[in-house]
């Protein structure tokens, strides 16, 4: 069965303290791995799509990387406004739906 697992469940950082979020997946043919940011009570906001192992994407303080088994979302020198839940999702071969992990709740304190 296709599965996505995110870790840690929650992460507390001091402003400027860099860290990484992990998304491990078990799927029968990856057709894309997606990262979203979600603020409380709002819909997910698209961040990145990665399609093949070795691929990397960057946006401001965020950098996403992909291997054959997992993806990392690296946050460099985070600010309090980076506080949110970060969701990882995969799209598998033959299907158009997204399979989501449970998310990592990130809190960045000044």
């Amino acid at each position: 069965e296709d599965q996505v697992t995110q870790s840690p469940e929650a992460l507390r950082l001091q402003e400027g303290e860099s860290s990484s979020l992990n998304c491990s997946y078990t799927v029968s043919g990856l057709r894309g791995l997606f990262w979203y940011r979600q603020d409380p009570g709002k819909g997910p906001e698209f961040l990145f799509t990665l399609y093949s192992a070795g691929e990397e994407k960057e946006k401001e303080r965020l950098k996403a990387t992909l291997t054959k088994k997992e993806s990392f979302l690296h946050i460099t020198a985070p600010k309090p406004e980076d506080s949110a839940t970060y969701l990882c999702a995969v799209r598998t071969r033959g299907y158009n739906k997204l399979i989501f992990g449970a998310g990592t709740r990130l809190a960045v304190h000044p």
Partner: protein
Amino acid sequence: DAGVTQSPTHLIKTRGQQVTLRCSPKSGHDTVSWYQQALGQGPQFIFQYYEEEERQRGNFPDRFSGHQFPNYSSELNVNALLLGDSALYLCASSTGSGNTEAFFGQGTRLTVV
């Protein structure tokens, strides 16, 4: 460019009632997917509509049904509401190729009492 819009934003219903949620996709998108997100969980796929037909369905009972209109907008209907149906309902739009990013609306918070 308007993104994905959903209505209403909040809704309170009584057990056993029926509810209809609405979604207008992002300009240029022709595919609409619906997701249910319980508190503290990731979104769960309900179904996807393309060319006014249900193309794929997740593990949800027949109480959940949908419709897509010629202008690509969509409705999600839930009959015989249960307390467990309380959740954030998300609509996502994309293009029919299925190989593009999905963009989400702000969601409808449904509370069943």
